[in-house]
């Protein structure tokens, strides 16, 4: 406690220098290192008192780090790269084929919240026809996040926590990620953004036939939240990968017991042909590390 609680002098008593010095020593003790809530008034701390940086106003009280930048091709309307089918994903590259990433170089401390946003434009192509485009049009591509927490060379990429890479085999030769829960740090879709591979429209002519369409221009909006409950970790970089084609299924796990919803990688021609692609234009990414308390 930093309250000064000494008593007053009494008239008529003899003072010594140490008596008086002690009075001021009490004040010195409080103001040297012990000022706390007992000393300040309510509402006494204002913006001016925050230890903020001149250029960005960041005080570290809420915001720890904010980084943003381009992923993939140049930031224009036409540059894009075509990606083929892939179960475990392909990193987004620039026009010359070089992998791209957002350099972060920031520490995610225990209890800090990592927020990552990425968005961009895509278009898909398919040769799937009406005759085999069945099963409720649930064919899609997925984008998800990887991070490098090893070193600044950005050569050691792994999926971010609570995100799988479709290497999880649920049964037989079928690989999938659960969509409704996080089964483990490497088994989930926490950072995944989904875009449809194609969509079908009933001709409504009584024939039961459908037309197959792809979205010539489509958006992808990815979001990732992660509260670090473990030891502090340095995030050197973040990048986006794209994989597919996946489909929604209601499936048992490998032991044939638990059943849940998955996004499952598929090569069935009901959903995808080997030559199908997704073209990805420029993507913007921002990463925020902030305090949770």
């Amino acid at each position, binding site marked *: 406690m930093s309250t000064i609680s000494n008593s007053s002098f009494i008239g*008529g008593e003899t003072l010594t220098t140490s008596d008086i010095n002690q009075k001021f020593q009490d004040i010195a003790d409080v103001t040297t290192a012990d000022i706390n809530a007992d000393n300040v008034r309510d509402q006494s701390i204002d913006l001016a008192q925050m230890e903020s940086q001149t250029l960005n106003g960041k005080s570290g009280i809420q915001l720890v780090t904010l980084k943003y930048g381009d992923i993939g091709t140049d930031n224009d309307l036409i540059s894009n790269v075509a990606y083929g089918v892939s179960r475990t994903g392909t990193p987004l590259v620039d026009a010359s084929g070089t992998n791209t990433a957002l350099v972060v170089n920031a520490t995610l401390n225990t209890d800090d919240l990592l927020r990552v946003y990425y968005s961009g434009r895509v278009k898909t192509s398919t040769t799937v026809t009406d005759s085999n485009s069945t099963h409720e049009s649930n064919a899609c591509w997925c984008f998800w996040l990887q991070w490098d927490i090893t070193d600044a060379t950005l050569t050691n990429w792994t999926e971010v926590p609570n995100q799988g890479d479709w290497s999880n085999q649920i049964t037989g030769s079928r690989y999938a990620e659960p969509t409704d829960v996080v089964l483990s740090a490497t088994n989930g879709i926490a950072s995944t953004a989904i875009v449809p591979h194609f969509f079908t429209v009933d001709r409504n002519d009584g024939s039961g036939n459908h037309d197959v369409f792809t979205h010539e221009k489509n958006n992808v909006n990815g979001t990732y939240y992660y*509260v670090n409950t473990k030891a502090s970790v340095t995030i050197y970089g973040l990048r986006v990968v794209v994989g597919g084609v996946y489909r929604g299924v209601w499936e048992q796990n490998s032991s044939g017991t638990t059943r849940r919803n998955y996004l499952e990688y598929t090569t069935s021609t009901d959903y995808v042909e080997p030559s199908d692609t997704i073209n990805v234009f420029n993507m913007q990414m921002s990463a925020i590390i902030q305090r949770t308390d």
Partner: protein
Amino acid sequence: MKEWTQGFPQNNALVQAEQFNDEYDTHKGTFNGGLDRTALNDDWCNRTHLKNNALLLADTTALTANDNFVSQPSGSSYAYFGCVQYSEYSGGWASTNIDQTLSDCHEGMLHVELKGSFYINQHEAKTNTTQVKIRLKLNGLRIAGAGYFVQPFMSFRITADVPITAGTNELTVDWRMNGNNNYATSDPIFHLFGVQLMSVARWR
């Protein structure tokens, strides 16, 4: 800040105890709860000076999915999600089990984000394109909405900023879709999955 209002002893004057006490107590009172923004230096306050949740509260929910009114196929394997079937949905806004409770709030502003993905069965929609709306509610009152969505798959992020009161605040999520699209009663029609709420409440 308490002002120094007492006079100083004059040269060669005899200092009385009461005179000293008045001056000293004024000085002491400034430090005993009288320091304020006019007395405190600029640019000194950082995380080390603040207790947890002094200024804000940030939290996010676990990954989840709407499992209200959800029928799940039987059998060994099914090539669509276990999700809302047409026979289960009777129109209007339908609630979900996706929510977030923010406890020990103070009066301030809440920034909230709802992110997730959905699947709409357009393949079986025979008469119209199925259209879906999603809304976010704070303590039962709508604060943000989005849609109509029509793509068979889509990932979304809905953001709102709204004043909050002290105490506990509750966020909930609803969805709805348009009318009869001539589905068969057992057709899967809609699945909301991979959903998380992220809230940053600030009171200073």
